[in-house]
């Protein structure tokens, strides 16, 4: 049997809802069982060393994995789901060390230093998300914020989305495994998102764009027409949802008659709120951070 290289993956959850890992389980092609069992690219297999939602072990026996130097030897990918509470050590902990509950942010920082690359899975990890929203008491922040605070220099890929589409992570991993980190780094945008998934505005590729251009707008839920008046954030959101579709290509938000909420964008939810209110001139200022993108500036 030809030798198969194992790519260890450590998946840690901070202030998360587990929606990102559940979304990954929705992977259609390759299917979830293949992600676990089979080679993801020829000769390379993702070894899910630590993944709390599905791993068999528990307690100290799995905490030990996070201290296992053999994972570090050949390099590993650290995936972080959820934001990281930076305002107190007890807001999110994982395992104990000498009777002390260990903050997840500390473990993430320690593991990030030795990682081949780190992936911020989901909007919380990429940009802070809801736990970092206005009114929070925990000073939750993104993975990048933690890396900057602790001066950790490691390649970072942001895969935002609440949750992210499974293809966005799987496709990114495949790109790294097939073409290498440098090649992938060259395809990231200024927010460290792979352009192949986040390069186009929802509004550009939306099947209801013709309704917008013709001035046909839905005024209430369940009505046909463009959802702009119902608060659609497609014009300020960059993702390939309209063409990729969700849940094995079954549907997507606008396909279900619901406005896009811009869940992949930095500043979600604060900058995108109110979710069901039309973007107006005044509020457009709040979206400045989201611009410009390549596709915008080339126009």
């Amino acid at each position, binding site marked *: 049997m030809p030798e198969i290289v194992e790519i260890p993956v450590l998946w840690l959850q901070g202030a998360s809802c*587990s*929606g*990102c890992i*559940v*979304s990954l*389980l929705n992977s259609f092609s390759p*299917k979830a*069982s293949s992600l*676990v*069992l*089979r080679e993801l690219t020829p000769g390379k297999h993702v*070894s*899910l*060393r630590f993944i*709390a*939602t*599905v*791993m*068999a*072990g*528990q*307690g*100290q*026996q799995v*905490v*030990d*994995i996070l201290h296992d130097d053999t994972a570090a030897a050949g390099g590993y990918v650290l995936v972080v789901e959820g934001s990281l509470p930076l305002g*107190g050590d*007890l*807001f*999110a*902990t*994982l*395992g*104990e060390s000498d*009777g002390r*509950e260990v903050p997840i942010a500390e473990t993430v920082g320690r593991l990030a230093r030795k990682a081949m690359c780190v992936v911020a899975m989901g909007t919380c990890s990429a940009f802070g998300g*809801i736990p970092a*929203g206005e*009114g*929070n*008491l*925990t000073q939750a922040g993104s993975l990048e914020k933690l890396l900057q605070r602790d001066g950790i220099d490691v390649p970072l890929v942001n895969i935002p989305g*609440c*949750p992210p589409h499974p293809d966005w992570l799987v496709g990114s991993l495949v790109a790294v495994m097939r073409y290498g980190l440098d090649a992938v780094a060259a395809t990231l945008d200024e927010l460290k998102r792979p352009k192949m998934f986040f390069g186009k505005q929802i509004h550009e590729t939306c099947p209801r764009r013709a309704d917008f251009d013709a001035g046909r707008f839905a005024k209430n*839920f*369940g009505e*046909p027409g463009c959802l702009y008046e119902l608060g659609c954030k497609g014009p300020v959101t960059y993702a390939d949802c309209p063409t990729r579709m969700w*849940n*094995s290509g*079954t549907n997507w*938000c606008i*396909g*279900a*008659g*619901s406005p896009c*909420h811009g869940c992949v964008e930095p500043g979600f939810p604060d900058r995108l709120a*109110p*979710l069901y*209110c039309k973007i107006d001139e005044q509020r457009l200022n709040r979206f400045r951070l989201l611009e410009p993108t390549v596709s915008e500036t080339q126009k």
Partner: protein
Amino acid sequence: MHGSHPHTHDENGDVISIDPVTRIEGHMKVEAVVDGGEVKEARCCGTLFRGFENILIGRHPLDAVRLTQRVCGVCPTAHGTASALCLDDALGVADKIPHNGRLVRNLLLGSNYLQSHILHFFALAALDFVDVTALADYAGSDSELKAVRAFIDRQELSPFFPRYEGDYRCEKQTNVALVKGYLAALHVRRVCHEMLSIFGGKMPHNIGIVPGGVTGEVTADKIASFAGKLEEIGEFVEDVYIPAIFTVAGAYGDYFDIGAGCKRFLSYGVFDMDGERLLPPGLIEADGKPAKVDAARITEDVASSRYSDECAARPAEGKTIPQPDKQGAYTWLKAPRYDGGPAEVGPLARAIIGFTAGNKVIKGEVESALSAAGVGAEKLPSVLGRHLARALECRIAVGAMTKWLDELQPGEPVAVPLEIPDQAAGMGLSGAPRGALGHWIEIKDKVISRYQLVVPTTWNGSPKDSAGLPGPIEQALIGTKIRDRDNPFEIVRIIRSFDPCLACSVHVLTAAGRAKGVYRIV
């Protein structure tokens, strides 16, 4: 001592600490004080605090239905449902939801139940009972099982190792069949999400449920697609899921006697029908007597919770002021109590409440299952009873969803227009797959001034209260005999039978709604 649990010594005995408890939703630790081979005391700890309700304050009321889904990625649809009911109440449209809107909401929540229950038994709980290594010398022709064997041959066994060892009891062929079920479940639970997204747009975090109804039009092609997926899922429930429960029960029959818990059960009822709920509301006292639920009897205790003492109150009046270093506190969960006592919520509670109320469908399913398992109804409060109740609930959901699908009327309205009042308050009571779920809102100046959730795992995973009463999971652990301290299967099997969801429970309770005298339970 690689792979074993740290044992510290407590004045009452050895402490087994399991941190993290995996294969659940969220961050949980459990500590069990073991003396003479028996659990004497148990501490159930939520180890994450996000402060969701504080974040909701000041936002547009409609945003709550989207943001509260993000409390939990496993049961977002249940939060969407409870939040929509809550907003329906506050916006004055609770009695105006169109027929299609009500039915589609039920179909969305039903899809979430199926996904969550199937995920729970196979992907989360089954590895406590099933030995994957049975595939090491698999010689059959099934392609996926051959892939499992090739995987084992490579000796890189994550995420199936490390694990507890020493108590896998099934015969080899039975293990092979259950592993096949595990792999099939990964496929079928994805189909549940595909089904949900037909009307819900996407999953996790569907976008279809809104106050006033749902967003998606009802069309014949959607009904056809939904029906096809529901049929596939129904076949899995009948052919794989329910039989798997009986298979596991056959090998681990003693788990009908392990993990009873507080034997007091609560449900608000789930799935709105015309004037009633498919799964009826109710309370069952520890002596087996049924009672009507009155949400005004719910209080929250913070004696062992990392919140300042002033946070102890009725949910509608409660506060959330974190105090991480509070003396004697060991969890981010508060302790909800009904009439001062703990109550178990979830599929077992709903089954026992329906059974006791003489609900025809539930009684029929439970009686025939008990008879097939060869045990009496007194064995229901147990590890196996919970798994059984969950599987039967899937069968009931598939049956009801098939009917709801037939009742849909293409082209008819799915939602009513909404107006945001200057001031209002509302309550939404429903059930997540893992138990009773309530949302409360208060609106002032057209924005959220208070929002509050009381969620299933806050009930089940609650800590000891000021009266010294442990929560349901803690009670289920106490008295349990531990055969092997280094591999305490009993503890994790008991905990997982409750299907804990820590993201939901830690921590959502907070900055309360208002005191509402009489709570209407549909």
